[in-house]
């Protein structure tokens, strides 16, 4: 569950990225976040991960009150969230396999399970051939898919995907969203930032529109299922 109460974020440069946002996403929800460039979408996501702190208001994610969260509890919080970063954030010194496996390593998963599970998610995003490559040896879309695989691998309660299909062709994008939908069907909460209105139109569901640091639309729309 994600709950933002009257949250504002002002960066040290003086930019007001979010203004008194109120938002509640229940467990098991699937929500698209849309909005123009620089609206504050990524800022909201950084908040949920405690990458930055709210200047005002309270943030609550998966039962953790982020305002009061102790530094050494942060890893615990982050393990309950799978994130696809807008800039991928793959570890350059690790291969695709290692990047994804790392998330399981940090939770002390058994080596056997890691092997099986990582191979499975690499298959899900269609990167079987690239498992042993380093991020610098991948195309943009491939890196993005590694980031998606990493977000899925440890079965998190909440998956947050910031622009996960920006570098991927439409067909694959549809597949990825369908994958997320199926994961959502098993109970995982999903929050997906996207610029691709086609996707939003097709799948429908809850749509949150952020503009200039404020939520200007938050409602459920039917999917058209057209392509």
């Amino acid at each position, binding site marked *: 569950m994600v709950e933002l109460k009257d949250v504002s974020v002002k960066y040290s440069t003086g930019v007001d990225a979010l203004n008194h946002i109120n938002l509640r996403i229940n467990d098991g929800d699937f929500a698209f976040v849309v909005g123009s460039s620089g609206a504050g979408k990524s800022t909201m996501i950084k908040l949920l991960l405690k990458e930055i702190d709210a200047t005002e208001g309270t943030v609550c994610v998966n039962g953790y009150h982020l305002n009061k969260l102790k530094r050494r509890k942060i890893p615990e919080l982050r393990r309950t969230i799978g994130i696809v970063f807008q800039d991928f954030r793959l570890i350059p010194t690790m291969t695709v396999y290692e990047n994804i496996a790392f998330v399981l390593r*940090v939770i002390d998963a058994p080596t056997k399970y890691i092997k099986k599970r990582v191979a499975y998610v690499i298959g899900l995003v269609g990167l079987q051939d690239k498992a042993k490559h380093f991020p610098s040896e991948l195309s943009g879309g491939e890196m993005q898919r590694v980031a998606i695989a990493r977000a899925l691998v440890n079965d998190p309660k909440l998956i947050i995907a910031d622009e996960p299909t920006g570098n991927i062709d439409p067909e694959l994008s549809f597949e990825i969203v369908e994958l997320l939908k199926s994961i959502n069907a098993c109970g995982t909460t999903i929050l997906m930032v996207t610029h691709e209105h086609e996707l939003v139109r097709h799948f429908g569901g809850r749509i949150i529109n952020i503009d200039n640091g404020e939520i200007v639309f938050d409602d459920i729309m039917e999917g058209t299922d057209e392509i």
Partner: protein
Amino acid sequence: MKFSSVHYLVKKGIDNVVRNKMMAFASFCVLLVSLLLVGVSVLAYLNVNSIIGGVEQKNEIAIYLQDGIPNEMIEHFGDNLRGLPNVADVVFYSKEEALDDFKARMADSDMLFDSLNGENPLPDAYRVRVADIQHISETVSTIAKFEGVDSIDAPYDFVNSLLQIRKVLMAVMGTLILAMVIVSIVIISSTTKTSVYSRREEIQIMKYVGATDAFIRFPFFVEGMVTGFFAGCIAFLVTWGVYTAVTNALQNQTLVLNIIGTGSIIQFTDIILPIAISYMAVGALIGALGCAISTKRYINV
């Protein structure tokens, strides 16, 4: 943490050395240099100390006995001297030996002795070497109270000079070691900071995907340890080679050796084990700590 995790982290640390060859080599070089600077300074300190100790052994107190005291009293006197705590060595120096030596030394002025007509104006004497020249004056005043002493000639000038030289040299060498330790800290921290800085992104990403601080730092720790250990090994070999070369070169400098005494230079083989262990242990420790501490700064995300 489970064994599989520890195993993974250690392996990762070792892999990192190979994957960041350039960085690992830079750290290796700086650690090597630091170890050598400090190690060689310490060895120099030990040798200077030992050399001064050797020179100190050459001290000599001359105790002139009263004329005409009986032989058994002279012997008793010698036994008493040998019984004193700070006395290392006692030699009897008869008036006959004294005159012969005097004549030999004054060979140019033969004519002086012609007028002696076989008389020997010189006294019997004991020559005493003290163990610790710092307490020479106490030893002399104890001896002065012995029966049969005519006069005592103690090398106070020599002792004072030596004590002062030791003080100066020890201060110099101590400062040198301190300076080298500071130099090492500065250059090691500069290099590890720079090296870790170039990997801050990696560290931060790990933190973002839920790794704990310890989990991130452990491989850095291992990496630093491995690098430091190798630096220690090479430092040891370099020291061995240089040290042996220097001592061999000194063997040829007979005049210098005369002054400092042959036995005063420490043989490398006598200290090979503590040196090897210190180098490797200190190298590994410093390498590990340097890396682990530097990561701290970028881990707070």
